[in-house]
């Protein structure tokens, strides 16, 4: 259940502009980051452990590695199929934001 709490904490508190993510950005080491995640989560009613945070980070690293391997293979396949020019590749950028999460700084 605490894995779900960690997931909810990320979705409901960390991935929103505001004090929670600002505090996490100010940490200077991995250990401090994990400890602060657990403390802020507990303060806001989400119960999870440092080990669960570390496990999630490792899972994400492994997933990213797998994605990169798959993307590299896909690019290789595509290059062989279409004979792309050097330095030309597709990327994903931000078109726009939904909602008004980034309001003017003030008033």
């Amino acid at each position, binding site marked *: 259940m605490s894995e779900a709490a960690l997931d909810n904490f*990320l*979705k409901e508190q*960390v*991935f*929103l*502009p*505001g*004090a929670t*993510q*600002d*505090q*996490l*950005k*100010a*940490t*200077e080491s*991995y250990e401090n*980051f*994990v400890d602060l*995640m657990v403390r802020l989560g507990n303060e806001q009613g989400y119960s999870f452990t440092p080990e669960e*945070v570390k496990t*999630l*980070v490792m*899972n*994400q*690293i492994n*997933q*990213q590695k797998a994605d990169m391997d798959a993307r590299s293979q896909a690019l290789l396949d595509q290059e062989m199929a279409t004979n792309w020019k050097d*330095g*030309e*590749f*597709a*990327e*994903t*950028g*931000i*078109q*726009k*934001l*939904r*909602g*008004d*999460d*980034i*309001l*003017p*700084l*003030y*008033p």
Partner: protein
Amino acid sequence: MTSSLDDYLKVVTPYLHPDLVTPQAIAQIQALAYRLPIASAALLECRLNSTDPDIDFHASFTHLPPNLGDPFLPSSAWQACQTLHQEWMDSTSALHHSVNNFILEFDLPEYSIDASSIAAINPSPYIIFKSGMSSGLQPLIQQTLEVLQKAPNPALIAKIQHCLHALPEGASLANVGVWLARSHQAVRLTIKEIRFEQLPVYLEQIGWNHPTAPLTAYTSTLTPFVDTLALAIDLDPTIHPKIGLECFATKDFHDQKRWQALIDHLVQTDLCTPAKRNALLDWSGFTQQTDCPNLWPANLTYGDLLMGSNAISFFWRRINHIKLVYEPEQPLTAKAYLAFGHCWMSRDKVVLTPRQVI
């Protein structure tokens, strides 16, 4: 190595056109930002109707480290900011429950960028109240001034109270600050959601005894271009002749046409040079790690890893507002406030687009 606000500034600097911010001004801001902790957002304040390269800087925080002033020479201004910050961070305090942001404004020296002049710089702090805080502000303001001014003048407290009681319908206090870095050490009040037609009566009611006709003649042309207006006044306890009108063309991040219409109007009325108009309109946008992998700040590493495919990590840039500065018998002037910051945001709130990079 400790992260600094300079790490964020480096990401957005390539989008600052030299017509708007000169390389020398950027060097000054970088030297200052290197001594500041990372902020939730920052503002660059640029003059629009001249080639004046003078620029000021604002950093907005939702929390601060306890050693905020350490990279600067000790001063009463830094000490006051530190004390106010401690009271704000006390979870049992009224300030903690009422204040959303703590902002430090810096008047940068015009020419010098040597380390000693940057170390000697003082902040002028202001606080932004949480939205919906329209009543009960007087004790909070008094508490803030007791920290920032030690023993505030009772006449000043009474004048602030008068300014709040006289607020026109729909208007409310956005922020309060003290010009600790300036010799007059006046209090700044910013009144938000005030309307153009309410300005003359309100200014008269609070004792600003100057002609408003030159101002209203110009603001009457602005109405179609401005969505929200804020009035900035300084008092000590007399209200200073110079006032500011903060114009927000739109709250919609993507409505660039609204900003273009307002800024085009400023150009047509000689309040903005064409070169600065073009530079301003080029500012807004987003930057992701793939755009500048070598500049991506190290403090974002762990969060970037944790978010996986559930969120997007990006820097945003937007025009925050345009301020018109009016001083009786002086020409009207305009400034732009360029905002930037970093955000982790749920992927479902971001619309992605394929693009080709060559």
